[in-house]
């Protein structure tokens, strides 16, 4: 079942950056790639559950602020230790200058 939720305006996120988005008791990270595409993942790193909001987006990678583990935020794939478990990703669509995520 889809559940499209407006998360933010496109302009809220700089190119090659990300922001935190909280929805009730869940937390997400929403990314804007260098190509101006939008993506969404779980907000907490799979290593020690630190929020990725203070991390660094480098091309298509998000680097965790705690131990520098990296994920490909497009697929959620864990790319550099100490992260070993992939990050959950969520479908994203852009409509009327807003970013919507399907959080199921």
């Amino acid at each position, binding site marked *: 079942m889809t559940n499209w939720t407006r998360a933010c305006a496109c302009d809220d996120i700089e190119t090659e950056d990300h922001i935190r988005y909280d929805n009730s008791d869940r937390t997400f990270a929403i990314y804007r790639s260098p190509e101006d595409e939008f993506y969404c993942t779980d907000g907490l790193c799979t290593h020690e559950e*630190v929020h990725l909001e203070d991390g*660094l987006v480098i091309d298509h990678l998000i680097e965790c*602020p705690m131990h520098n583990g990296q994920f490909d935020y497009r697929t959620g794939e864990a790319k550099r230790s100490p992260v070993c478990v992939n990050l959950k990703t969520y479908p994203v669509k852009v409509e009327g200058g807003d970013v919507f995520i399907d959080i199921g």
Partner: protein
Amino acid sequence: MTKDNTPPWRDYSLTGRDSGPSFAPKQWYSTPVPRKRMKELMKRRDVPALIDYGIWLGLVLATGALVVLTWGTWWAVPSIILYGVFYGSCADSRWHECCHGTVFKTPWLNTAAYQLASFMSLKNPYLWRWSHTRHHTDTVIVGKDPEIAFPRPPYPLNILWNMLHLQSGWNELKKMFWLAAGRLTKDQKTFLIEADRSKAFWASRVHLAILAMTFVLAMVLQSWLPIVLIGGPTFYGSWLHHLLASLQHAGLAEDVPDHRLNSRTVYMNRFFRFVYSNMNYHVEHHMYPMVPFYNLPALHEEIKGDCPPAYPGTLAAFREMLPAILIQRRDPFYFVDRKPLLPEAANPSPEYTRPTAIAAE
């Protein structure tokens, strides 16, 4: 001593009675820095990294050539001292930087430098990556941090040996043999994940093979020269790094979720900062491990108003640290409390106390 022969103070092993819960990551204090500025500071750049690593490797090669050219004369002594510092001490700090993956923008450069510096400092690249990860999760948390260099009460001879890498160097060699044989200690099993264990074993085998070949070459040539050039410098040349690194946490508070209180930032001269890859900005490094070493002085400027004053020089830091660890010899509960030194305008240190310790199985 208690009945089981353990001291009545703390148990620093990772599976002992003080290895219970520690702070959650969100409990660690960090000085707020505007996101835009933080993004600039976290940016990786190949150019400053290549300049630093190029100068370093150039110096290793140049002083190494000097050792070969002066071998058999008294001029070999200063050449060996210089070579040792550039090989042993510089490699140890560069191993650490590449372990964080923050040095180069180009990932393979980082990986290559990490593997090289790991061998030069005789550190297993996988075991140490995970040990260092834990050190950042649980900085100076007793029973959790595997990298507490000066457990209390400190033993003066160990302090001296550690500064000269004599104790820790032999420990690395011992670890190398055990890992090459596919063996892990109980403590190592607590932080080295299954998936990286066989990589750790193979890395130690490769390191051991290189050392063995060096030894054989020395036998064939009937000369110490190969050992002085490869492997040996980790022992006779790491002293400067160990001397500077001993200032990182020793004598300060344990079990506090605030790096302003358990780490030192020390102003050092340019040569020390080169050898030590700017790790004199240690509060900054722990608070924001994403920031590459070449941006740490700028980060220091951003957060210094929220931190106790930096030590004005290396000697000043030793003048505090050495008496503190000598007092801890008599009184293991003594530490230098940096809390009263926080500037008036600084954010207060969080009042968390560590959750009650539950001995691990």
